[in-house]
């Protein structure tokens, strides 16, 4: 099996502009851009990662438009543009943009599917509909991307409004270390739910990227 979906002319995971018609631009959600860049660098793929702000996830209706705008800007400078988003709550709007511009995207409904597999995620919800999912990114940025965005820093009493029907936190751990484990435990404590750790690694993300770039 080839280790490279395209000829590995150089290795970079940076988002700095280095236009080349031989290279691919990966428009990536900021929540997965870092592991994407790490994989790209390790594999030596001729890909540059262009992150969009991860907080777009809290206004998913804006994702498709942002991807369209960035893809249009990048297309003249790259041989190819691909999209490092799943559907991500756009409910088909991102697919419409991909169809419009001839772009491919990551599979699945959310990055959770990309990390753990759609079947596994579905089983989590069948087992307990009140499952709240975290990734390494969300664990690391919990205070900003969850607590502040939900207003829990200002109004802790809203905890019940948001999490009253949840029964557990499932952390899809890509690269768990002591610090992340501590942060995950603290995050689940703050929303008052038990924590389950499911170690997914980045293997599925890597496979999905490879397929996307092939």
């Amino acid at each position, binding site marked *: 099996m080839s280790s490279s979906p395209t000829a590995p002319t150089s290795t970079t995971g940076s988002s700095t502009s280095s236009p080349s018609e031989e290279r691919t631009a990966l428009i990536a959600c900021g929540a997965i851009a870092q592991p994407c860049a790490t994989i790209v660098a390790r594999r030596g793929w001729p890909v540059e990662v262009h992150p969009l702000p991860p907080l777009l996830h809290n206004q998913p209706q804006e994702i498709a438009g942002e991807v369209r705008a960035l893809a249009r800007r990048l297309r003249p400078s790259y041989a190819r543009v691909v999209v490092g988003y799943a559907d991500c709550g756009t409910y088909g709007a991102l697919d419409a943009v991909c169809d419009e511009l001839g772009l491919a995207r990551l599979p699945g409904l959310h990055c959770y599917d990309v990390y753990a597999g759609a079947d596994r995620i579905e089983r989590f*919800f069948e087992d307990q509909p009140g499952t709240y999912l975290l990734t390494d990114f969300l664990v690391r940025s919990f205070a900003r991307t969850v607590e502040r965005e939900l207003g829990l820093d200002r109004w802790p009493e809203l905890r019940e409004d948001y999490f009253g029907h949840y029964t557990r936190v499932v952390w899809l751990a890509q690269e768990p270390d002591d610090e992340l484990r501590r942060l995950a435990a603290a995050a689940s404590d703050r929303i008052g739910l038990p924590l389950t750790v499911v170690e997914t690694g980045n293997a599925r993300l890597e496979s999905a990227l490879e397929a996307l770039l092939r």
Partner: protein
Amino acid sequence: MTPQEILQGLYDETLVGNAPRVLELTEEGLSNAMEPQTLLFDALIPSLEEVGARFERGDFFVPEMLIAGRAMAGAMERLRPLLAETGVATVGKFLMGTVKGDVHDIGKNLVNIMLEGAGFEVIDLGVQVAPEKFVAAIEEHQPDIVGFSAFLTTTMPMFKANINALEKAGLRNEVVVMVGGAPVTQEYADAVGADGYAADASACVKRAKALLDARRTKVPA
């Protein structure tokens, strides 16, 4: 405080979600012999309408909506029995629930707040509501509208299951069916045979009123 100061205070404090102060001002208004419907229609509802308008403009987000709603809900707990005593007619009765298999209710709760603020009587069945529970609640409460909420693409098919259950129970023509939730579209609502759909809480109130007006025009009382 003068009645005008109380009304202004209620409006301002609801807008910023200061629940304890809203309740204090409600009590102060009542102890000053202000009518409960005056507190509701001249302060609380206009404030919540402003919250909805700011949300539509992108000036407010979900937390601001929720915290204002909680402040309003606290006052309503106090005013609801008094309003019932005065015999103030509601705009209509709205039965609401998140469908079976789905625990998401933030959007539904925002809709409830806006509906109640607009004068609807809202009966909320909560989350994971099975079709048979909707049927039983419709028979018990005889609402004008039933609302099905779903946040997941995997639970949206319950809309059709619920509508089928209403048809089987002979209730489909007795009630207006509205559906909503993040993944829901007008096309999907049409496909499952719902009467109405709205993209957000403010739009839901307008659509619900329009559907009831149309129904009442069509069916003379």
